[in-house]
């Protein structure tokens, strides 16, 4: 005789206390997300305001909200240089952050990210090919060729990861090893191209692989914003399933979750999003690796909070890196990929050492 689900006595005082504690936790997490949003707003404003030519905040705000009231050069600086740069930092950071978070969950590996599993390296190879061979793709405008080719190769690498996942019967270790192999393979190919490239092409190529926000434009921002919005909403619909996956793959499967579909769908989303991000701004490492770790510490692994948290933290981190890239060497715009790598490596080592400590 099983007791029906709803026929339970009124909750005990102890029980209501636990439930209200849980609600408080939920509120605290939402507050945490809001706080990160506020930090992002502050960082964005500061980013707008930072650059070789000084701009008072009042002028800046006037340019944004009342275009006609300022002169032409100011308008160009704000709308064509400062804003695309700062907004692109947010979008790329958010894309890489949420991509890393989802990859770490579906591959059950804390070191998974678009950068560590070869998607970025593949994009760099695609871009190198386009720059050195001076490719033309029918139907693609000349200004988009490098990005388009980078995107194609990033997508290809993700497809390889998907195929391996399928072929290996979805063993996560196999996918991760394949990703590492892809990183090495594409780095070698990029080196090969650099070796045979002309001096001119070499300069463009090196600049591309460093990762820079300076080539952002509004069209790209539009494309990435739409991709991010679509991808994030799909991810949120799978939030419970992704969280359940953290209880163990077998268990999630016995809950009736189609693990293969969940993993393939997620990898596809990650591939599109990270390939777009990397193809617009070049290789930017460590954001996709570290933002999820910070989100996990701050918000836990309930993916309803963890996924948006990773996106927001990624955005915040790249926005801060973008400011640093402008003020690190006065008068020089350091490629932001260098900044994230320099800041990211110590954080990365911290994660590795901490996870080592947990195992032993």
């Amino acid at each position, binding site marked *: *005789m*099983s*007791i029906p*689900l709803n026929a*339970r006595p009124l*909750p005990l005082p*102890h*029980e209501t206390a*636990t*439930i209200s*504690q*849980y609600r408080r*936790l939920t509120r605290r997490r939402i507050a945490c997300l809001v706080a990160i949003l506020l930090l992002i707003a502050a960082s964005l404003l500061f980013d707008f305001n930072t650059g070789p030519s000084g701009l008072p905040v009042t002028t800046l705000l006037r340019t944004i909200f009342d275009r006609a009231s300022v002169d032409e050069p100011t308008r160009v600086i704000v709308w064509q240089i400062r804003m695309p740069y700062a907004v692109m930092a947010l979008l790329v950071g958010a894309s890489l952050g949420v991509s890393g978070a989802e990859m770490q969950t579906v591959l*059950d590996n804390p070191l998974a990210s678009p950068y560590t599993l070869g998607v970025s390296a593949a994009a760099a190879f695609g871009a190198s090919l386009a720059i050195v061979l001076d490719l033309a793709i029918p139907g693609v405008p000349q200004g988009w060729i490098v990005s388009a080719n980078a995107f194609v190769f990033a997508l290809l690498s993700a497809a390889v990861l998907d195929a391996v996942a399928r072929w290996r019967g979805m063993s996560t270790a196999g996918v991760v090893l394949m990703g590492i192999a892809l990183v090495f393979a594409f780095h070698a190919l990029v080196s090969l191209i650099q070796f045979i490239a002309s001096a001119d092409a070499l300069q463009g190529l090196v600049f591309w692989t460093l990762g820079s926000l300076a080539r952002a434009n509004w069209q790209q921002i539009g494309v990435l914003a739409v991709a991010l919005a679509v991808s994030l909403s799909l991810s*949120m*619909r799978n*939030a*419970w*399933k992704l*969280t*359940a996956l*953290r*209880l*163990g793959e*077998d*268990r*999630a*499967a*016995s*809950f*009736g*979750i*189609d693990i293969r579909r969940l993993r393939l769908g997620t990898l596809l989303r990650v591939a599109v999003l990270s390939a777009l991000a990397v193809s617009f701004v070049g290789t930017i490492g460590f954001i996709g690796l570290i933002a999820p770790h910070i989100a*996990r*510490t701050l918000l*836990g*692994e*309930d993916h*309803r909070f963890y996924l948006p948290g990773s996106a927001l933290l990624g955005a915040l981190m790249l926005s801060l890196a973008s400011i640093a890239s402008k003020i690190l060497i006065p008068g020089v715009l350091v490629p932001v990929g260098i900044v994230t790598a320099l800041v990211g490596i110590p954080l990365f080592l911290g994660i590795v050492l901490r*996870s080592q400590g*947990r195992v032993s």
Partner: protein
Amino acid sequence: MNTMTTTTTTTTTRAPGLSIHDLTVRYGRRRILDSLAAGVLPRGEVTALLGPNGSGKSTLLRTLAGLTAASGGRLTLDGETLALSPSGARSHSVVYLPQALPAGVRLQVLESVRVAYCATRGHGFGSTHTTRDADIAHALSVLQRLGIGDLAQRSLDQLSGGQRQLAGIAQALVRDPQVLLLDEPLSALDLNHQFHVMQMLRDETRRRNMVTVVVLHDINTALRACDRAMLLNRGGIVGFGRPADVVTPDSLMDVFGVVARIEPCSRGTHQILIDGLAPQADMASR
């Protein structure tokens, strides 16, 4: 329905419980389970799966769970055919608990139980408040029944082995399963937790009238705490019935190659005493 095959099938198909009909599982050419058939594993009873390493215990459990594909055979629950894959309606009636629960997961115990409940119930992000409160209250009530209500706010990665196992069982029970499958739930537990978990499994199995199947290594636990035992060897069933009937000095000699005695204790329970490995001559004759 086909009325022929063996007599056991015809007499047991309609009884309430889980029946296994000619289940075959292959890895490549190797047969892990060979036309395995067993009468009813009844509702309200805990069945122990016993056998040496590689005898097919875990494979049988995973096949019952739908996680390992069977190349032949059939499962029925209360006479109704049960799909051999975990999709769809089946996942609401069968829950599997693997031996190792993942480490380093940053979820609170209550959260993890709620996730197990919500994972496939289609609760989107914007589910209504009443549903959410009902979810949480239901999750908490399961924790309290298992005596770990006070761990609700603790993080999974801070729990001891025993506590984590109990949290895992809570994650299974919250789904109100008809069939509960556990792979060596006692392997990492101290004595107190072993008794606690088995006692709790028995109580919940009776209360919820579900079919519970547990892979066990400790034969004494099977004798003491299970209603039924299934002894496997080399992919086939050697014995199935009351634990005291299945676990005998002869069957232990056959399956494990040990010389054993079963001694009734003064308090009515049976204890198994192992004297040692079987002499070489006996081993050779097996």
